[in-house]
């Protein structure tokens, strides 16, 4: 069990704050991109990158590193902010998001940016990719862990359930899926567009170990990560209840912030709230 004390919580809280500010800044400068779902995942990503995962930014190809796959690839800004803060690349790169020639593509590209583990963006594919990584770890008898972050709307893709079946079938206890359950997708509430609920029951029926948490409570996130790490025999799904746009009052729970970037005025307002 990894320690969860005030010190650790202080670190991840600070990092989550920095990640949120960078998300707003990079999207504001890019002028397009996905704000709401990046902010809803910021706490989980901060806990993964600054508490949980074995990583070495100086050796991004280190074979025994833990792997993070952003299956909800449109939340690329949250990943880029974490990678920059971790030291995988200079922070100035963040200012190039979505620009021609930038290593920071609109959706993550492993061939263009150090620290990115998979090419994602087409929903449902990242979780299968993560299953493949977990299988590779088993074949090679390596003890790294694989983390996949999915959106709740993403669960509407049938491929997710093919992957869920395979992960349970092959008893991949080195795999953890985090579901950013913010309840909104582009066209509206997931409950109205195409409900994937009951999410926990579905993963449980496929044979996964299930944990449900508040996805903004760092202690709960860390406890879930600790619990999943010691759970043997099946993969773990963490259903994280989150708020889309978390941290910026005027964005919270508002579907119009799914695929919208803040203008200058909104950016300043958001940064003032996050300061």
């Amino acid at each position, binding site marked *: 069990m990894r320690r969860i004390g005030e010190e650790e919580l202080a670190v991840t809280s600070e990092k989550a704050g920095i990640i949120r500010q960078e998300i707003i800044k990079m999207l504001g400068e890019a002028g397009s991109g996905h704000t709401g779902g990046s902010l809803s995942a910021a706490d989980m990503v901060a806990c993964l990158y600054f508490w949980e995962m074995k990583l070495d930014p100086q050796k991004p190809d280190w074979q025994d590193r833990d792997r993070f796959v952003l299956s909800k690839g449109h939340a690329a800004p949250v990943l880029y902010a974490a990678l920059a803060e971790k030291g995988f690349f200079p922070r100035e790169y963040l200012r190039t998001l979505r620009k021609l020639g930038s290593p920071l593509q609109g959706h993550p590209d492993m061939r263009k940016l150090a620290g990115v583990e*998979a090419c994602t963006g087409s929903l449902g594919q990242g*979780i*299968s990719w993560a299953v493949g990584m977990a299988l590779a770890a088993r074949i090679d008898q390596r003890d790294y862990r694989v983390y996949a972050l999915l959106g709740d709307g993403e669960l509407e893709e049938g*491929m997710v359930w093919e992957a869920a*079946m*395979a992960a349970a079938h092959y008893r991949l206890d080195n795999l953890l899926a985090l579901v950013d359950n913010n309840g909104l997708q582009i066209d509206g509430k997931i409950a109205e567009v195409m409900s994937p609920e009951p999410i926990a029951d579905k993963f449980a029926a496929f044979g996964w170990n299930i944990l449900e948490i508040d996805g903004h409570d760092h202690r709960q996130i860390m406890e879930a990560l600790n619990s999943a790490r010691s759970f043997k025999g099946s993969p773990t799904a963490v259903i994280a209840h989150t708020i889309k746009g978390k941290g910026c009052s005027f964005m919270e729970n508002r579907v119009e912030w799914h695929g919208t970037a803040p203008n200058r005025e909104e950016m300043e307002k958001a940064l003032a709230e996050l300061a």
Partner: protein
Amino acid sequence: MKKQATRDAYGQALLELGALYDNIVVLDADLSKSTKTVEFARAYPERFINAGIAEQNMMGMAAGLASCGKVVFASSFAIFATGRAFEQVRNSIAYARLNVKICATHAGITVGEDGSSHQSVEDIALMRSVPNMTVIVPSDGISTRQALFQLYQHDGPAYLRLGRPAVPQVHDPGLDFAIGQAVELRRGKDLSLMACGIMVSKALQAAEILAAEGIEVSVVDMLSIKPLDKEMIIRKARESGALLTLEEHSIIGGLGSSICEAVCEYCPVPVTCLGINDLFGQSGSPEELLQYYGLGVEQIVEKARKLLKKK
């Protein structure tokens, strides 16, 4: 003439490769007995993963395994590997430039009795349109084995198109094939038959009949569809002045289209494309179907005679 299905040669070559290289992993989608990956599965169970009837997830898993250093051979029928899982192949494998070799069997109408749902006539077009993708269509057991060894060494994604029925051996056992190279099997100045897959042996038979009439044709195995051997195409166009393309695939987007693209740009000569004429397949025996869709030996001979008049 010795006959062997290219899928059988694939299964055997995988066994050879498995013994040589530890980093090979083989995936299948519940068709291992048909795709012949079952032999590898028996020999190396720890390196064989059955994805079940879930081709999309199979391609995603293949990407994940390859991103961790594995050389992945992923098999299913051509229709499912390239059709059902197209976007996974495109986004997870080809865009990421990963070492996944999609080795699809049961391509074309010679699947036979199972009928159109299982007969892929679009797969070459689909795969060659994807950036980073290498496309190889072997014509016999020898070229299949050679292609597989080449693809293992090749860094990047590839599509290998294999067939169900036994086909005659057309290459010497000493074949030295390299990705991007066509192989000339017969030389003649009057016309060039540019074929791939099962149509290579048909072209050789047609060439015999034409030779008896005093018409000397070249037969070229265009097994590397992408990269395409443009030098060979230009050379044959210049030497013989007309090309007849032959494929067990739609005339839209396959070998014939590839050759026309090259010929139009570099050395325009009359070309006739023989293939499936924008139609779906149907049930029947492989030979019956080849005849029905105009790909029988006599039909090739007839097309060749007509094309000669256009020169």
